[in-house]
């Protein structure tokens, strides 16, 4: 396989306070190829959002800290860049869309200002040119009345429109990588589908790779080329999207698949995984999923499993599957 666009190697992002060390991201490896859509799946608190903020180097300071690893983007380690070099990358080479389009836009600046400032910053355009380009981009992402909307403020737009504005902002410099942190969670189902469709269209037309953070397996089925399942700060399974639905290997992934509601089977009680995620301040020494795992053996509680390749391109962190 060609050299990946993004290669995360043994990344560890911790939150350190006087009393505890919270290992939010605890040694993950993820590859993203050019133009690929990779979905990172997991429950709240599994470290998926911190992974994306780590790539952007926007982990909340001063407590959050990337303590180990490499994030190779086109072969260059982002963690070795100066703050200034990193800010040159953000918004231009790598950009990000957040979950809440409501709060992610500045309430006192016009849409036009918020989009055009990116072009002024990265492309050296003047304000007039940048605004023209912003209108063009808004039209491209399907925002009606783009000419008027650049003079409006975020509170005047609907949630779906705001997320389109966010996408326009993220894509306006045609980045090589787009990170979308649950971009559709806050939206209506019909709007969700439109926004996902739009993101796929952007990928097809610009060749931008997308990392999509989600806990919605419907989104995964719709979008993903490759799926990374995270649990308690670690990658537990990494595989092509088709395989994950047909042959999930890791007990956690299987449990996730079982908890998808289905129209064909008439179940009275929806399956849910018993127990809760272990505290990231105090992980067990064995397998982190063992407590909740229906297949757990005594040995699982003693020895932490390694991520290993069980089939070509199929990585699983479980000693019981083959």
């Amino acid at each position, binding site marked *: 396989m060609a050299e990946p666009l993004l290669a995360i190697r043994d990344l560890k992002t911790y939150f350190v306070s006087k009393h505890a060390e919270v290992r939010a991201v605890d040694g993950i490896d993820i590859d993203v190829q050019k133009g690929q859509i990779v979905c990172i799946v997991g429950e709240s608190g599994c470290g998926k959002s911190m992974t994306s903020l780590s790539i*952007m180097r*926007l982990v909340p300071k001063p407590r959050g800290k990337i303590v180990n690893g490499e994030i190779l983007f086109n072969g260059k380690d982002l963690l070795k860049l100066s*703050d200034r070099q990193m*800010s*040159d*990358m*953000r*918004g*231009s080479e790598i*950009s*990000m869309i*957040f979950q*809440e389009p409501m*709060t*992610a*836009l*500045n*309430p*006192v*600046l016009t849409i036009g200002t918020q989009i055009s*400032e*990116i072009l002024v*910053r*990265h492309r050296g355009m003047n304000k007039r040119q940048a605004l023209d380009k912003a209108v063009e981009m808004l039209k491209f992402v399907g925002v009606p009345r783009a000419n008027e909307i650049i003079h409006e*403020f975020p*509170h005047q737009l609907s949630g779906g429109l705001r997320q389109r504005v*966010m996408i326009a*902002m993220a894509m306006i410099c045609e980045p090589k990588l787009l990170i979308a942190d649950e971009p559709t969670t806050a939206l209506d189902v019909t709007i969700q589908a439109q926004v996902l469709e739009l993101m796929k269209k952007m990928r097809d037309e610009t060749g931008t790779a997308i990392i999509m953070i989600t806990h919605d397996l419907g989104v995964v089925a719709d979008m993903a080329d490759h799926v990374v399942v995270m649990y308690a700060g670690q990658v537990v399974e990494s595989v092509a999207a088709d395989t994950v639905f047909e042959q999930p290997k890791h007990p956690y992934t299987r449990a996730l698949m079982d908890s998808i509601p289905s129209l064909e089977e008439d179940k009275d009680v929806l399956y849910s995984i018993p127990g809760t995620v272990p505290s990231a301040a105090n992980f067990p020494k064995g397998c982190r999923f063992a407590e909740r795992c229906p297949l757990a053996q005594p040995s699982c509680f003693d020895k932490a499993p390694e991520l290993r390749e069980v089939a070509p391109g199929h990585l699983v962190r479980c000693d019981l599957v083959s």
Partner: protein
Amino acid sequence: MLSYIVRRIMEAIPALLGISIISFILLHIVPGDPVRIMLGQHYTAQRAAALSASLGLNKPLYMQYLIWLGNIVRGNLGYSYNYSQPVTSLIVHALPTTLSLVLISTIFAQLFAMAIGTIQAYFENSIADHIVSVLNYFFYSMPSFWLGILLVIFFAIELHWFPSGGVVNPQDPNPGFADWLHHLVLPAATLTLITLAGYSRYMRSSVRETLLLDYVRTARAKGLRESQVMFRHVLRNSILPQITLFGLSFPGLFAGALFIEEIFNYPGMGLLYWNATGTLDYPVLLGVTMFLGVLTIVGNLLADILYSLVDPRISFDNM
């Protein structure tokens, strides 16, 4: 917008009536007799009765109030007992002096507070943050007259850098702007230091909250320079609460100027009020109090209008 302003002014009338009743009662509760003070050593019962009658002070209190109110509605604040001048002209004469003191102090205090509060919030919990916090509390808890006296002792008496009082040099037949400014430094510095502390505490917490908001993260995710993030995205939102604070603190500043004008012998509203207190000059005391009442209401209205200009989410169209 216009109908909103008109409505706010209408709503202010009951408030002003309330202020007038309370301050009228409070002033007359204060022990002392202005007639006795005015006559001094020439006091006789006969003269006192005559003076009382001519000032209308022999009428029952509610009648005095109604007469005074009737005059006020017609724009007549009455005559000062002391100065034998209309209160209106006394206020008009003293206002520019106080206003320049208050406005200049406020502008400096707000500007410094924005800078100090922002830097503190940005470097939260650093040693500099802690040192500035301690200094803030130091000035915040210090009485204005004491700080004023300290500044006079140090900068006027010891160092001779600035005059210890007055507006201009009385011996100079043609005092210019520079002389006026020279006299303004110490009183303005006192008022600035006293108010700065409170403002910068507010600014610090405001910036701290804004820094945690999602759109600041978005601004950073766009790759904006840290200075752009701070000036365009953080500061603009953080000064919104300062505007309300400004509206609310405006009358307080006049009250603060009272002591400062007394210490620096600075002939503004504060000194006028101070001198009127000593002689129970009712018309002046009531006039200045009512003026401050109007100022409070106007200050709040101005703050609200200013707010709507800075924050697009607030509009008066459907209020």
